[in-house]
C-alpha cells in the first residue's frame, strides 16, 4: 500500500498539469498504464485539491491548482490528529500502571 501511495506518477501528473492543462487521454499517453489507471490517479489528486477537472465536449480536462502544493495547513492539521491519537494511547498505558 505504501508503495502504491508513493507512486511517482501522481507527482508527475501534478507537475505536468500545472505547466499546461491536459485531457485525461493526453495524460494516459504519457504513462505506461491504462486510461482507467490514470483516471484513478487524477481522481485522488482531485480529492486532495491539487488538480481540478472540467469537461470540454467529450474530453475531461485536468488543470493544476497553483499554490495547492504549498497549502500546509491541512497537513499540519493531520499531524495534530495523529499525535492526539498517539497521546490518547499513551494516556491509556500510563493509566494502567497508575491503577492500584
Amino acid at each position, binding site marked *: *500500500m505504501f508503495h502504491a501511495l508513493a507512486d511517482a506518477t501522481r*507527482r508527475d501528473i501534478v507537475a505536468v498539469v500545472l505547466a499546461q492543462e491536459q485531457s485525461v487521454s493526453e495524460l494516459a499517453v504519457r504513462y505506461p498504464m491504462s486510461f482507467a489507471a490514470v483516471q484513478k490517479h487524477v481522481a485522488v489528486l482531485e480529492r486532495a485539491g*491539487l488538480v481540478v477537472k472540467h469537461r470540454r465536449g467529450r474530453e475531461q480536462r485536468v488543470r493544476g491548482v497553483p499554490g495547492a502544493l504549498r497549502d*500546509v495547513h491541512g497537513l*499540519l492539521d493531520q*499531524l495534530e490528529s495523529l*499525535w492526539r491519537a*498517539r*497521546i490518547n494511547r*499513551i494516556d491509556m498505558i500510563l493509566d494502567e500502571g497508575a491503577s492500584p
Partner: protein
Amino acid sequence: MTVTDVVKDPANRRMTITAEFGAPVERVWQIWADPRQLERWWGPPTYPATVVDHDLSAGGAVNYFMTSPEGEKYAGWWRVSAVAPPRRLEFEDGFADAEGRPNPDMPVTVVAVTLDDRDGGGTRMEITSTFATVEAMDQLLAMGMDEGMKAAMGQIDSLLT
C-alpha cells in the same frame, strides 16, 4: 483532556503539541525507552508495531514494522540525533522498504520530545514534529493529502474503509 496546547507554524512546516500526564517524568520516559511500550502506542491498534532495533543513543537507530490485518508489513526507521534521558529525545522518522532500507520516496519528519516536571506533580510532554523539507510535504500532498498523510503517519487503518 490530556492535550493542553497545539501550535502550528506553516512557514516552518512545524506542529507543536503539549500534553500533560499524571505520571512522573521517569515513567513517561519509559513509553519511549521501552520498545514493548512503544509498540503499543506508535501505530493504531489495528496495525500493531513490532520494534526490531531500539537504540536510543545519539546516532542510534530504531527500526520497526507495522502489520496490517491482512498480514502485510510496513517498515519504518528512526535515527536518533540527540538524547538526554529522561527528558529529551530528538530523531528523524522515515519509511523503509521491505528489507528495512530507508525509502527516499517517502517523507521524513523530525521529531523533538521534551519531558518536564509539571507544577503540582506529573509530566508535561512537548512534541514538535517538523516536515524535514518542503519536498517531504509535497510528496505527501502529491499522494493525495488524506491518503498520503494517513499512510505516512501510520494511520493506515482508515485507508481500508
